[in-house]
């Protein structure tokens, strides 16, 4: 997506439709619909305007803005602005909405999701600071009621000093009241309390900004936060001395708040919004509120589970033989399972786990427990027991020999020489030969990867349904801050663990092209997709415990180093991650089964055809004699640098199609005893940092062009082998087997 910085002009930004008289003497009025993403603004826009809307890109951007004449008065223009979470812009969408408000609107209809009131009130507080008359529409009241939420609209209206209307837009309920309330739109005088350093800065610069058509407090806050997009407009309208005063105030505030003014402003607004929301909402038939402080019993339960996991982990490393088997091991697992059952069944325990999962220190411990349990389930159970049964028993003992026998019988009954014989031998080779569709493609897809990804998708669905993923994003955000990266990079990186291709599209939320390219590079370089991660975890189940630790340290180290270096090369303000934190929920069996089945259906439909295609390419290369030449040509890298057997080149070759396919090839090599643990780790590091899969490559082409996609692949391909070679040297240097 093309983006460019659009300095806001404080006088006229948005020209509106050409056929409306906007002379000072006319009655032309402008109403903006503002709100968080997906709160029903478009439905309310339709209700206020009818169907004749003009959709156009906002000048200089690719962001679409819809506008139309109001149904009740053609001289009133209604503008449907892009969804925002803050009016201090962090994205192009938010900048466009901010600029429309700066351009001057007569009033605002703020549409809120009633069940996410705090998120909406953060925007309300900024509209109050902007001194814009507004009406607050609490939409989706039916869903709020379904959750037992009761909102005192009268109390909210009294607190804010603006009309508050309750609607269910999709059914039309309350929409007439919205139209009626427009004439009563009012300026809210509700104020968030900011840190003393900010309030001192506001006192210094607010008066300098009083000549502008919007509230000087709002503009002053943006200046203190260091919003560069305002710079051009301010330079046009203020004297150099005033600009210097604003710059001084910004510098002072940044100095006193350790460079985190934007974060402190967001925090203060969220606190104020939470306080306001608490005062006007209650739960219908609410029992005792969930405790916000961890009780001693919860601490004991959590610490016991953590200690049990640690003991099991040390036993797996071979450092604690006493817990490696027998009743101590059973007791340790009983503690982990009991903690899981308590977290599932007891709301207080669930809430405590939710709090721990998003705190810096305890969050890492919770992540460790989660990863360990997934590793045991996917790596040891699924990859060990289930794969052994499917690969060795079902495919190895029954299916493949049966098919080979049938085909051999057909060959024996067919012509003994000539073209017919060649054809039947070719078909046999294609189906059950060394690179046969059954012996390779279907065996890899169904016997190796399918059971592993089934277990992994089950775990992922449980995490998804429990509300853990947003907490994981918060923890990752802290790591990213340490790297100096933009907080918005968190979502694509976490989503990349599902599918890198989709996550590459998500990189659009980054503000600059450089940031988008950097996030895309990190995704393509070192974030394994769910299927590949499942296979890698599966192989770890058969490797010593140091193997996953080395792999994790190398992959995270590479990501950290590349991210750290890139953040130094790409200086700029860091933006904050704003994410609604849902409560920890009891995972529902139905949801877990449906999501897992849905993902498995997708896997079978998308991955298996690509496995078949990859195997066909291998078969064709082999038949043409080219495969041997490729393997020989890759020997300096595969055998020389990585110390792997020549057959590993075939795994890397199919890794071009899908990285999980390449990982499955390494899994099969290890299963056949062709790799030592060190070789397996070296191969896994290399295939994890390997070039993006076909789908991801084409998405990178679509997003950034051929040159960037090819340049990325040209960097990643040798880099993956160099890192693999370094790991090989290091592991052999310390004498690991």
């Amino acid at each position, binding site marked *: 997506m093309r983006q460019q910085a659009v300095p806001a002009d404080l006088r006229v930004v948005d020209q509106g439709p050409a056929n409306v008289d906007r002379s000072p003497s006319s009655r032309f009025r402008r109403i903006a619909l503002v709100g968080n993403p997906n709160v029903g603004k478009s439905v309310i826009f339709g209700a206020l305007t009818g169907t004749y809307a003009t959709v156009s890109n906002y000048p200089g951007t690719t962001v679409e803005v819809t506008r139309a004449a109001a149904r009740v008065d053609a001289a009133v223009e209604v503008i449907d602005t892009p969804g925002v979470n803050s009016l201090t812009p962090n994205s192009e969408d938010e900048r466009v909405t901010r600029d429309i408000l700066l351009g001057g609107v007569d009033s605002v209809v703020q549409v809120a999701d009633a069940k996410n009131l705090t998120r909406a009130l953060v925007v309300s507080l900024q509209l109050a600071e902007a001194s814009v008359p507004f009406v607050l529409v609490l939409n*989706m009241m039916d869903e709020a009621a379904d959750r037992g939420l009761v909102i005192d609209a009268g109390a909210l209206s009294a607190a804010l000093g603006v009309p508050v209307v309750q609607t269910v837009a999709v059914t039309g309920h309350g929409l007439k009241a919205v139209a009626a309330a427009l004439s009563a739109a009012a300026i809210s005088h509700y104020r968030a309390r900011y840190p003393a350093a900010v309030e001192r800065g506001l006192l210094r610069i607010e008066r300098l900004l009083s000549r502008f058509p919007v509230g000087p407090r709002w503009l002053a806050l943006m200046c203190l936060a260091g919003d560069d997009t305002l710079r051009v407009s301010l330079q046009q309208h203020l004297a150099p001395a005033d600009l210097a005063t604003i710059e001084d105030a910004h510098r002072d505030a940044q100095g006193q708040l350790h460079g985190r003014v934007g974060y402190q402003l967001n925090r203060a607004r969220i606190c104020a919004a939470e306080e306001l929301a608490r005062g006007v909402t209650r739960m219908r038939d609410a029992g005792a509120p969930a405790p916000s402080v961890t009780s001693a019993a919860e601490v004991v339960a959590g610490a016991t589970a953590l200690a049990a996991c640690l003991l099991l982990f040390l036993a797996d490393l071979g450092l604690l033989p006493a817990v490696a088997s027998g009743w101590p091991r059973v007791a340790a697992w009983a503690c982990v399972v009991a903690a899981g059952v308590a977290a599932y069944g007891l709301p207080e325990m669930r809430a405590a786990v939710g709090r721990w999962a998003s705190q810096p220190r305890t969050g890492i411990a919770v992540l460790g427990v989660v990863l360990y349990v997934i590793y045991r389930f996917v790596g040891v159970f699924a990859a060990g027991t289930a794969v052994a049964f499917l690969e060795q028993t079902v495919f190895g003992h029954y299916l493949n020999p049966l098919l080979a026998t049938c085909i051999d019988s057909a060959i024996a009954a067919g012509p003994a020489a000539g073209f017919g014989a060649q054809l039947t031998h070719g078909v046999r080779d294609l189906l059950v030969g060394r690179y046969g569709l059954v012996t390779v493609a279907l065996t890899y897809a169904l016997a190796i990867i399918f059971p592993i990804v089934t277990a992994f998708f089950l775990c992922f669905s449980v995490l998804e349904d429990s509300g853990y993923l*947003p907490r994981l994003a918060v923890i990752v955000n802290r790591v990213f801050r340490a790297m100096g990266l933009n907080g918005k990079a968190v979502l694509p990186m976490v989503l990349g663990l599902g*599918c890198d291709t989709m996550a590459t599209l998500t990189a659009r939320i980054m503000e600059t092209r450089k940031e988008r390219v950097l996030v895309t590079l990190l995704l393509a370089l070192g974030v394994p997709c769910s299927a590949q991660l499942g296979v890698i975890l599966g192989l770890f189940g058969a490797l010593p415990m140091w193997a996953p630790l080395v792999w994790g340290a190398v992959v995270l180290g590479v990501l950290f180093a590349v991210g750290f270096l890139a953040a130094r090369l790409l200086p700029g303000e860091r933006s904050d991650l704003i994410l609604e934190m849902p409560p920890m929920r009891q995972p529902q069996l139905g949801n877990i089964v449906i999501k897992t*089945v849905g993902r498995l259906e997708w896997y079978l*439909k998308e991955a298996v055809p690509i496995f078949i295609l990859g195997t066909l390419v291998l078969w064709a290369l082999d038949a043409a004699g080219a495969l041997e030449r490729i393997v020989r040509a890759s020997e300096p890298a595969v055998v020389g640098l990585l110390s792997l057997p020549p057959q590993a080149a075939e795994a890397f070759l199919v890794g071009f199609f899908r990285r999980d396919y390449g990982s499955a090839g390494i899994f099969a090599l290890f299963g056949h005893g062709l790799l030592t643990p060190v070789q397996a780790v070296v191969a896994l590091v290399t295939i994890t940092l390997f070039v993006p899969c076909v789908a991801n490559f084409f998405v990178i*082409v*679509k997003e950034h062009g051929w040159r960037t996609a090819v340049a990325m692949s040209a960097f990643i391909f040798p880099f993956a082998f160099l890192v693999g070679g370094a790991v090989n040297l290091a592991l052999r240097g310390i004498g690991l087997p």
Partner: protein
Amino acid sequence: MTGAADLITCSVCGTRYTEDEGRACHVDCPMRGCGHLSCPYCAHEVPAPTRLTRWLGRWFGRRAG
């Protein structure tokens, strides 16, 4: 019009969206749709409903009811 029951809740950011909104990413995707829906706010993806998952949904719904 879409009822509340047809809305999908994103498990990362909590946004509620319709199936059509979730398919909006397919327009930009060079793969022209991968059988997933993508949250319009944070892009977290979930498998799009299929005949099998709809049937499972009804089955679990009946059990829960």
